[in-house]
C-alpha cells in the first residue's frame, strides 16, 4: 500500500507515467521496422543493415522497457482497471522482455555468426512484434474504446446503437406535459438513457476505465457522481453537470465526450427529459437498488377477523401472525407479574406491596385496563419515567459538553411539560423541529469551541438527529459522502441540512468543499417542497408541517415502533433507528401507525392499547444471546425480558430501601408549575445529573442520540454494585432504618421480600436469610441481605 501511494503522489512519477502514450510508439515503430529489415535482408548475406539493426533493436528494447515502466506508473494514477488493462499490461511487459531477448541474441549472433543463434533471434523478434501489436491494440482499446475500429465498419449494425427502436422521445415529451409517465414509459425512457450512456460514455466511465471516478453503468454510481461531484441534479437538467458538459462546444477542455462522436441533439434531449422527470431508474429494471426501502405513505390494513373472543386489534393482528407461524397463545401472566410490569413500564416504579395485594384481591374483570389507565393518569410519575427515554433520544441532559461555551441548550422544561400534558406527538415533533426558545436545544445540537468537521456543523447535526429520532433513518454516512448503506446521497443530506441554515451551505465531501452549493429539500422530497427563499424560521415552519403531516407514514411508524420496543423489549422493526428494515408484521406496524394518527397522535392512548392487549400480557420470553434479538429469523412470541434501567433500579432502591438521591440534588423541579408544594423524600434518577453509578448501570452520556440501552451486564458495572460508594451508602442507611422499625430477623426478612419482590420469602429463602441474620440481627448482616436481594435477577429484571 505504501508503494502505491508513493507512486501516485510524487509528481515525477506522475509525469513519467504520462509519458507512456508518447514512449509506446518507439517500440511499435522500431520493432516492426526491425522485422521488415530482417525479411528484406534475410536472403542476402551482406552485412549492410547489421549496424543499423543493432541500433534499432537497442533503442527498441530500451523504449519497450521504458514504456512498460511508465505504463505501470500511469496505471496507478489514472482510473484504469479490468480485463483489457490486464491484457495490455502483460502483453506490454512480454513485449519488453522479448525485445530485450531479441537484442541479446542479435548481439550474440553478431559475435558468433551461427544459424542457431540467428534463428533464436528471428523467432524472438517475430514474437516481440506480435506482442507489440497485441499490446498496442489493447492499449488503443483502453484509450479509444473497444469498438473504435469496428464502429466505422459498414457491416456493424446501427440498431445496436439506438437501444430501443421503438423509443419515441416526441411521444414522451407530449405525454409528460400532463405531469406523469406511466411505468412502462418510465422504463422505456430509462432504458434509452442507459443505452446512450453505454454507447457514448462507458468507454471512459465504465467498469474497465473510470475517468474522474465517474461510472455510468449502475444507478447508484450515476447518482453518486464523480471526482468533481454529482453529474445530475434530479429534476433540474439545467443544473446538471452532465448536460452542461454535453452542451459545451467541442474543444472546450470540459466538453464531453472529449473525442469521438458527439451526442446528437435527440440524445441530449432524452437525457434532459429523463433528468427533468427526476432521473427515474425503476427498481425492477435489470439491476435493483440493493437496499430495502420502506413505504413512506401510511397504510391502514383491515383488522383480521377472529371468533375466539379477541377484541384488541393488536391481538387480532398478532393472532393472524401466530397462525402463520404456528405459534399458539399461551395463557396470560398472573396479576402479580402484570402489576409489576405495567408499573415499571408506564411509570418506572415498583408497585407498593399493598397495591399488589389490593390488585390481586380485586375481582373486577376490567381491573387490568383500569390499572393501566390509573397509571397513565399519574402525570408526574409518567413524565419522570418517560423523561429518561426522551432525554436519551433528544440527547438532552443537565450536564454534558457544550454548555461550558454556550454551545448547547437544555430543553428539560419543555420536555417535562410536554410529557406531563401528553402533548400530541405531531405537535411535539413540530415544536422540536420549528422550536421556540424552550425547545430550541434539540435542533441547535452541540457546538464545541473552535472549528468542527463539516459533517458535524450544527445544521447537519439537526438533519442527522431529526432523521434518526423521528424518521428512523441514518443520515450520518450521507453527511460526509454518499451513503454506502442506503440510497442516500451527500446532496440529500446537505439539502436537508440546508433547511436549518440561514446561509446556503457549501457541500463538503469528507470535510473538503467540492465547490457546489446545497439545494434545499426534505429528505423525503415527496412530503413537500421547501421554499428556499424563506428565512430559516419560514423553512422550519414548512418542514415541521411536512414532517408531521399524516401522509408522512414514516414518522408515525417510527414512533409507534419505538413505544412498542420500550414496552415489549424489541421493536416490530429492529434496530429501531433503521425503519427501512423489514418488520415482523407489516400489517401490525402500519395499522398501529394509522390508528395512532387517527387518535390524534396520543402517546398515552397508544401505550394503553398496547398494555391492555393480550399480546402484552403474554409470559415474557428470554433471550439466550443478545444478538438473537436482531437476528433475521426472529419470530415474535411475546415480550422480552429486560434489565431494569439505571433509573428504574435507582428509583426502586430509593422507594424500597432508602433514597439513592436526596431531593436536594434534583436538577429540575417538576412541581414548580403546580400549586401544591409536593416534596418527595427522594429525587427520581431521571432528574439528577449522570454519575458513576448511573453510568455503570447504562445511562448514556447524552452527547449523541441514543434510542436503546443494552441489557448486558459487565465487570465495571458489577464492581460498582459490589463496592461502589453510592450503593453502599444506601445499604448502610437502609439497614439502620430497618433496625429502627423491626427487631426480629424474620420480620426484617419478610419486610424486605415484601418491599423488594412483592411476595413473602419461600421457606428455603427464609432459612438461608435467617442463617445469615441469626436471631439478633446486626446492621452489617442486614446490609448484606439487602445487597443480595437487590441483585437477584428477580429484582433486576422486568419479566
Amino acid at each position: 500500500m505504501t508503494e502505491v501511494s508513493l507512486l501516485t503522489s510524487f509528481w515525477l512519477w506522475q509525469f513519467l507515467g504520462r509519458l507512456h502514450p508518447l514512449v509506446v510508439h518507439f517500440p511499435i515503430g522500431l520493432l516492426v521496422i526491425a522485422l521488415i529489415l530482417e525479411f528484406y535482408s534475410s536472403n542476402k548475406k551482406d552485412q549492410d543493415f547489421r549496424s543499423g539493426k543493432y541500433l534499432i533493436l537497442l533503442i527498441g528494447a530500451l523504449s519497450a522497457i521504458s514504456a512498460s515502466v511508465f505504463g505501470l506508473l500511469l496505471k496507478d494514477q489514472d482510473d484504469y482497471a479490468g480485463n483489457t488493462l490486464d491484457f495490455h499490461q502483460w502483453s506490454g511487459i512480454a513485449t519488453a522482455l522479448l525485445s530485450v531477448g531479441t537484442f541479446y541474441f542479435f548481439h550474440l549472433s553478431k559475435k558468433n555468426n551461427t544459424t542457431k543463434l540467428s534463428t533464436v533471434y528471428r523467432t524472438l523478434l517475430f514474437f516481440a512484434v506480435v506482442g507489440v501489436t497485441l499490446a498496442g491494440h489493447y492499449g488503443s482499446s483502453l484509450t479509444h474504446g473497444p469498438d473504435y475500429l469496428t464502429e466505422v465498419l459498414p457491416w456493424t449494425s446501427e440498431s445496436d446503437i439506438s437501444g430501443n427502436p421503438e423509443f419515441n422521445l416526441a411521444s414522451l415529451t407530449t405525454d409528460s406535459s400532463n405531469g406523469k409517465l406511466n411505468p412502462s414509459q418510465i422504463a422505456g425512457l430509462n432504458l434509452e438513457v442507459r443505452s446512450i450512456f453505454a454507447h457514448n460514455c462507458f468507454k471512459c466511465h465504465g467498469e474497465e476505465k473510470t475517468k474522474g471516478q465517474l461510472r455510468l453503468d449502475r444507478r447508484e454510481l450515476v447518482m453518486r457522481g464523480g471526482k468533481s461531484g454529482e453529474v445530475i441534479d434530479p429534476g433540474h437538467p439545467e443544473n446538471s453537470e452532465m448536460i452542461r458538459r454535453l452542451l459545451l462546444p467541442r474543444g472546450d477542455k470540459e466538453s464531453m465526450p472529449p473525442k469521438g462522436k458527439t451526442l446528437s441533439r435527440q440524445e441530449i434531449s432524452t437525457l434532459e427529459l429523463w433528468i427533468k422527470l427526476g432521473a427515474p431508474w425503476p427498481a425492477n429494471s435489470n439491476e435493483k437498488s440493493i437496499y430495502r426501502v420502506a413505504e413512506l405513505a401510511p397504510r391502514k390494513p383491515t383488522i383480521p377477523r377472529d371468533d375466539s373472543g379477541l377484541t384488541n386489534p393488536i391481538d387480532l393482528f398478532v393472532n393472524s401472525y401466530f397462525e402463520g407461524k404456528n405459534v399458539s397463545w399461551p395463557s396470560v401472566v398472573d396479576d402479580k407479574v402484570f402489576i409489576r410490569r405495567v408499573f415499571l413500564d408506564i411509570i418506572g416504579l415498583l408497585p407498593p406491596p399493598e397495591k399488589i395485594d389490593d390488585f390481586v384481591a380485586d375481582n373486577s374483570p376490567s381491573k387490568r385496563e383500569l390499572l393501566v389507565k390509573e397509571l397513565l393518569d399519574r402525570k408526574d410519575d409518567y413524565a419522570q419515567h418517560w423523561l429518561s427515554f426522551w432525554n436519551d433520544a433528544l440527547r438532552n441532559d443537565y450536564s454534558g459538553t457544550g454548555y461550558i461555551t454556550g454551545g448547547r441548550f437544555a430543553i428539560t422544561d419543555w420536555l417535562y411539560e410536554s410529557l406531563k400534558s401528553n402533548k400530541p406527538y405531531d405537535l411535539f415533533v413540530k415544536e422540536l423541529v420549528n422550536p421556540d426558545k424552550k425547545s430550541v436545544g434539540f435542533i441547535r445540537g452541540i457546538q464545541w469551541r473552535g472549528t468542527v468537521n463539516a459533517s458535524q456543523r450544527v445544521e447537519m447535526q439537526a438533519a442527522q438527529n431529526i432523521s434518526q429520532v423521528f424518521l428512523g433513518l441514518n443520515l450520518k454516512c450521507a453527511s460526509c459522502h454518499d451513503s454506502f448503506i442506503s440510497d442516500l446521497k451527500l446532496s440529500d443530506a446537505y439539502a436537508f441540512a440546508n433547511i436549518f441554515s440561514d446561509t446556503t451551505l457549501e457541500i463538503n465531501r469528507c470535510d473538503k468543499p467540492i465547490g457546489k452549493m446545497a439545494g434545499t429539500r426534505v429528505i423525503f422530497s415527496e412530503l413537500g417542497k421547501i421554499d428556499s427563499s424563506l428565512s430559516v424560521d419560514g423553512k422550519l415552519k414548512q418542514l415541521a408541517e411536512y414532517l408531521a403531516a399524516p401522509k408522512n407514514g414514516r414518522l408515525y411508524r417510527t414512533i409507534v415502533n419505538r413505544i412498542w420496543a420500550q414496552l415489549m423489549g424489541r421493536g416490530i422493526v429492529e434496530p429501531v433507528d433503521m425503519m427501512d428494515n423489514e418488520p415482523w408484521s407489516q400489517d401490525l406496524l402500519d395499522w398501529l401507525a394509522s390508528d395512532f394518527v387517527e387518535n390524534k397522535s396520543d402517546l398515552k392512548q397508544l401505550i394503553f392499547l398496547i398494555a391492555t392487549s393480550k399480546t402484552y400480557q403474554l409470559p415474557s420470553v428470554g433471550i439466550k444471546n443478545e444478538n438473537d434479538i436482531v437476528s433475521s429469523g426472529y419470530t415474535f412470541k411475546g415480550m422480552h425480558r429486560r434489565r431494569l434501567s439505571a433509573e428504574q433500579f435507582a428509583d426502586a432502591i430509593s422507594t424500597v430501601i432508602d433514597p439513592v438521591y436526596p431531593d436536594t440534588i434534583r436538577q429540575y423541579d417538576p412541581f414548580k408549575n403546580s400549586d401544591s408544594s409536593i416534596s418527595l423524600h427522594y429525587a427520581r434518577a431521571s432528574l439528577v445529573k449522570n454519575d458513576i453509578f448511573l453510568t455503570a448501570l447504562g445511562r448514556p452520556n447524552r452527547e449523541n442520540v441514543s434510542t436503546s440501552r443494552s441489557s448486558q451486564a459487565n465487570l465495571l458495572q458489577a464492581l460498582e454494585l459490589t463496592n461502589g460508594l453510592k450503593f453502599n451508602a444506601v445499604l448502610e442507611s437502609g439497614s439502620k432504618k430497618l433496625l429502627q422499625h423491626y427487631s426480629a430477623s424474620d420480620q426484617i426478612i419478610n419486610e424486605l421480600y415484601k418491599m423488594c419482590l412483592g411476595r413473602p420469602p419461600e421457606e428455603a429463602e427464609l432459612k438461608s436469610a435467617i442463617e445469615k441474620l441469626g436471631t439478633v440481627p446486626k446492621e452489617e448482616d442486614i446490609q448484606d441481605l439487602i445487597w443480595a436481594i437487590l441483585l437477584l435477577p428477580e429484582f433486576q429484571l422486568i419479566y
Partner: protein
Amino acid sequence: MNKNWNRREFLQKTSAATLAAMVAGMPTSLLSSCTSPKIKAKADTVILLWMAGGMAHTDTFDPKKYTPYEKGMQSNSVLSTFKSVPTALDGIHFSEGLQSIGNVLNEGTIIRSYVAADLGHILHSRHQYHWHTCYEPPQTVAAPHIGSWIASQLGPKNPVIPAFIDIGQRFTVGEAEELKAFHTAGFLGNEYGPFFIPDPSAGLDSVKPPVGMSYQRFEKRNQLYKELIGKSPIGEYGSDYQKESLQRSMEQAYMLLKSPESKAFDLSLEPRENYDRYNTGRFGLGCLLAKRLTEQGARFISVTTEYEPFKGWDTHENGNSRLTEMKRQIDSPIAQLIKDLKQTGHLDRTIIILASEFSRDMMTEGRPGAKVQEQVSQPDIINDIKHYGMHRHFTDGCSILMFGGGIKKGYAYGKTADERPCKSIEKPIKIAQLHQTIYHALGIPADTHYEIEKRPFYTTPDGNGKAEMELFA
C-alpha cells in the same frame, strides 16, 4: 443505538478459530476484524503518561536558546526559560529539571515533531478528546478512547485486572463534561470503559470489599447471594443473557476483589525507599501504581498529571516557576518507572508514551500561519516575572517520549526549528500515525474497525493511520 452482536459473534468465532489454529500449529490471521496480515506484537501493555494542559516543548524536552529573566526583556527574544542539560544521548539536551528522564533516554526515543490538529479556537479538552480518540469532536457516534479500543481488541492481560485503568483524573473540575466525553468506551460498550482511580493512594479501595467489610464477611455475603439466587422462584423463567451476564459479572468482580493481584493496587506494600522515589505527589504515585499493575498484568494504563483549567501544565502565567514544579513532579517517578520495569524485564513488552495535547509558545497562539483567537495576553516587553514563560497554546512541534515495547533505544526522531516559530521541520508526525504505531506495537492491524449503525468505524480515521516503522528497533 449500537448492538454489540457483531463484535461478540466475531470474538466467539475468532477465539474458536484461533484456538483451532493453535492446535493445528498453523499461523492465523483471524485475530482481528480485518484482512491484513497479522502483526507480531512487540508489546502487551501500554502506559500512557499524560501531561495534561499543554506541555511547552521548548521548556521541557526540546530546549532552545536560554534567555534568563530580566526586567524589560523582549518577549519575542525568549525561546526557553530554562538552561539545557545533556541527556544520555549524545547531542540531545533536555530542559533543566528533567535530568533523570534524560539519563534513561538510552532506553527510548524522543519524538520532537508531533503536530497537533488545527481545531481553531483552543479548548484543551477538545484537543485532548482528539488525542485520545483520534477523532475530532463532535462525532456522530460516541468515539472510543484508545484504551477502550485496546481493551476491546486484546481484552485484559490478566483476567482479574481491568483492561483499561485510568489513574489520576477527577471529574469534578472545570471542563469535566468534556473530559467525560472521551474517557469512555463509546459505542464499544461500557464493558471496555475505563476503570477510574482518581487518587492512586486510594487505589486499593476500588478493588477491595466496601470500606469496613472484612474479607470473611465479603465471602459470606457472596455465599448468601448465590444461595438466594438458587432458591429464587424466578428460575422457572429459564435462562437468558441478562440474568447470566449479571451473575457472571458479579462473580468476576468477586474474584477480582479477593484475588492476590488486587494487592498490586496497594501502594503501602511498596518498599519505603522505592515509594519515596515515586512520591512526588499524585502523579508520581500514579506512576508507582502503574508499575505495580504492569507487573501483575495490566493492559492499558493512563496516568495523568490531571487536567484542571489553569492548573498543572496549563500555564497561562508564571510559566517558568510553574514548570519547575511540574518537572519536579514528573522527573523522578518517570525515570524510576523506566528503571524498575527494565529491571523486572517488563519494559521489553511494555510500551510507554509520554505526551500532551499540544505545546506552548510565548508568542504564537495556534500554529504559525494558522493563528487562532488569542487567549493569553502577553506583553511585548516583560516587566513582571509572571509573564516569563510559555503561555500561549502552540500546536506545531510538540515533544513525545516513547520507551519499551520494541521502540528504538537512544533515538531522536524529528526536529523543530531553532528559531521562532520553533515548529516541526523534520518528519512531522500526527495523531493517526502515533496511534497506529501504538496499535502496531500491540499487533493490532490498521484496518481494525467496529461496525456501528452499519458503517465501519476504524481505530484511526478511515483506517488510514500508518505505523511509523522508523520508531521501532
